[in-house]
């Protein structure tokens, strides 16, 4: 009798534990998450930035698939409080105005400080915060120093991703980077795991040859 009871107890504990784990993990996923819904960062991201069924968001918190800088939600503090909301959403600047090399080079690159100064020679900001931040950019420019931006989308160096090909194929930036225009601070919205890349490549019928990226 006792055996039966203990068996049932163990079964119930395991099942509820598993369901509980799913419940913890699931709300963090994509659109269901309240935090994501508010600003819709992940809207338009292919497959919700998930590499595979088991690539659950919660695992990022344990750095299960790698270090923090390769996990979703990586949002390092930048040397200048640059806001894509101000630039892209409010002032309607095209992505490629600043990230101009994206159609010419494998790298999208951060714009030269000169590009910033192209506008900010005139535009000096309205609020105090804007003024101080723009002054910082000016200082970097005048000193001839590069702004030490923190890289958000860090890829290992054995991955040769080509921005040019993807943009020329008509892909939108948001399919990988999410709704950047809505991000005051840029954040990584997808894990950028290989399974995620491959699932899209399979879906689109493009090359899944390893040598496309790894050489």
């Amino acid at each position, binding site marked *: 009798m*006792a*055996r039966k009871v203990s068996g049932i107890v163990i079964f119930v504990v395991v099942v509820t534990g598993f369901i509980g784990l799913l419940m913890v993990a699931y709300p963090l996923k994509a659109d269901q998450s309240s935090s994501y819904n508010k600003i819709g960062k992940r809207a338009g991201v292919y497959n919700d930035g998930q590499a595979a069924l088991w690539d659950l968001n919660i695992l990022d918190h344990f750095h299960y698939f790698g270090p923090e800088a390769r996990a979703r939600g990586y949002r390092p503090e930048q040397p200048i409080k640059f806001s894509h909301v101000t630039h892209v959403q409010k002032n309607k600047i095209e992505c490629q105005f600043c990230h101009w090399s994206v159609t010419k080079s494998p790298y999208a690159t951060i714009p030269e400080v000169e590009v910033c100064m192209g506008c900010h020679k005139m535009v000096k900001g309205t609020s105090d915060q804007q003024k101080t931040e723009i002054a910082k950019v000016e200082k970097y420019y005048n000193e001839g120093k590069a702004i030490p931006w923190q890289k958000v989308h860090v890829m290992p160096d054995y991955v040769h991703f080509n921005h040019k090909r993807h943009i020329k194929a008509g892909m939108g930036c948001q399919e990988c980077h999410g709704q950047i225009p809505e991000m005051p601070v840029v954040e990584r919205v997808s894990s950028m795991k290989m399974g995620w890349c*491959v699932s899209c490549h399979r879906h689109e019928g493009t090359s*899944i040859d*390893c040598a496309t990226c790894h050489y």
Partner: protein
Amino acid sequence: MKGEKAVVGVFTYMDDLLTAIEKVKAEKRDFRVYSPFAHHLIEHATSPGRSPVRFVNGTGAMLGLIAGFALAIWCAMDWPLRVSAKDVVSIPGFVVIGYECTILIGSLAILAAIFHFCRLPNILRKVGYDPRFSDDKFGLVVGCSSGEVDKVEASLKDAGADEVEVRDGL
């Protein structure tokens, strides 16, 4: 074990034990034999049927065979990469996987079957067990109602038990 009481007979000799078993069987009583090793005489005397372990084993082995091939074939087809000039699904190589999975799952099925049919792990049902039964003595435990204890006791003694004990049944 049915019955309020369990009468435990401790035997030194195999023929005494077998006689006692015959008796108990004739009386259609619930009984259990403890022995320090397996012996065909005891097996013949107690249960004529063959153990169902082999069916479990067979099922496990078949499942393993299918699972092994399925795993290899599915994995190869999921991302078909050519190596050398070999086919993506190259069955000769997958035979090894199928074979090993057959053995593995078949063997694990035996383990599961032994544990299941022997009701292991067993904490509570050592009715009438005595440490000597793993040593040099045989034991015959007979379940009976309190009223029948004396009768059973006498019959075991009669068969040649070294000593007879009465314990509570389960």
